């Protein structure tokens, strides 16, 4: 049953913390950022509970809050970066298919080279396995715009992946 008592969060803290941190760390790839986002997620959870707003204090709900914080992080990063570099949008979309088997490690490394929106979209869609409509909701975009973003993100990922393989 849901409860609005932040004490409920303290009760599940030891169990939930490695789950939330384990969700964030491999996705953002930085201990510093993962710790920041973990703290943000838990403090947001406290705020939500103080408002009687948390339907149920459990791990899936906390992961959901963490996912929001992760997307917000990339959004901020993207805003910061956009002022520096507008370019990088070389968009020739060649319809060459992916290789049959992909090197997962290289693929995850390539993901880290993408811009914030693209990284967020691919992470939600593929790492987390969300449906396109759910990705759209998290990003605050329409389903159409999200589909377009995913196509571009995949193309950018492919370029980054190929580059790392050609090196």
């Amino acid at each position, binding site marked *: *049953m*849901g409860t*609005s008592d*932040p004490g409920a*969060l*303290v009760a599940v*803290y030891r169990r939930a*913390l*490695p*789950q939330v*941190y*384990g*969700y964030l*760390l*491999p*996705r953002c790839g930085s*201990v510093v950022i*993962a*710790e920041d986002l*973990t*703290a943000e997620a*838990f*403090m*947001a*959870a*406290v*705020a*939500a509970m*103080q*408002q*009687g*707003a*948390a*339907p*149920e204090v459990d791990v899936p*709900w906390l*992961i*959901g*809050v963490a996912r*929001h914080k992760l997307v917000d992080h990339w959004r901020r990063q993207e805003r910061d970066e956009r002022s520096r570099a507008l370019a990088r949008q070389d968009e020739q979309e060649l319809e060459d*298919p*992916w*290789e*049959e*088997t*992909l090197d*997962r490690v290289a*693929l*995850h490394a390539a*993901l880290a080279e993408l811009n914030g929106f693209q990284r967020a979209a*691919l992470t939600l*869609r*593929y*790492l*987390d*396995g969300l449906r396109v409509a759910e990705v759209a*909701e998290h990003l*605050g975009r329409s389903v159409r715009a999200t589909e377009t973003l995913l196509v571009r993100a*995949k193309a950018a*990922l492919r370029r980054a992946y190929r580059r790392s393989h050609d090196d």
Partner: protein
Amino acid sequence: MTTDPLDALHLPLVPIEPRPEFADALLRRIEARPGPLDRQAATIRYFVADLDASVEFYCRLLDFEEELRPSPVFAMLYRGDLRLLLSVPGGPGAVHTLPDGTVPQPGGWNRMTLQVADLASTADSLRRHRVVFRHDVQAGVGVRTLLVEDPSGNPVELIEPTAGYHERSNR
């Protein structure tokens, strides 16, 4: 059904223990969090039928910002110092359902009142977005006022100060 090669990216959730110092420090922050009475933001809760449509309405048309949307039945928005909670009643957890089974409903006549700089242009914009008007711009005491409904039928009053408008002075 074709498989997507990028499904190889799927990352199952594997728990990772953070640094103990970090874990302890965060726990202290959670426990030290001041209670709601210590906080400044005035808070209003509205019950809504469609969370997405409501968040869109308040954020796009009335300058709220989305702070949290941790579940499909709840969102927290801010407009300056005002915090607006949007809850879909009767959802999972159903925390707002009374013991006798009564489920809260949107609507009614009590409303939040938001000050805007230019009521006429706000009214135009709301009209363009096909927002329901309970009454159009009219003169009140010290304000001009407009009463509209959010997508769930909750009233929202918009005011623009006129001569004689009273505001408590800073103390």
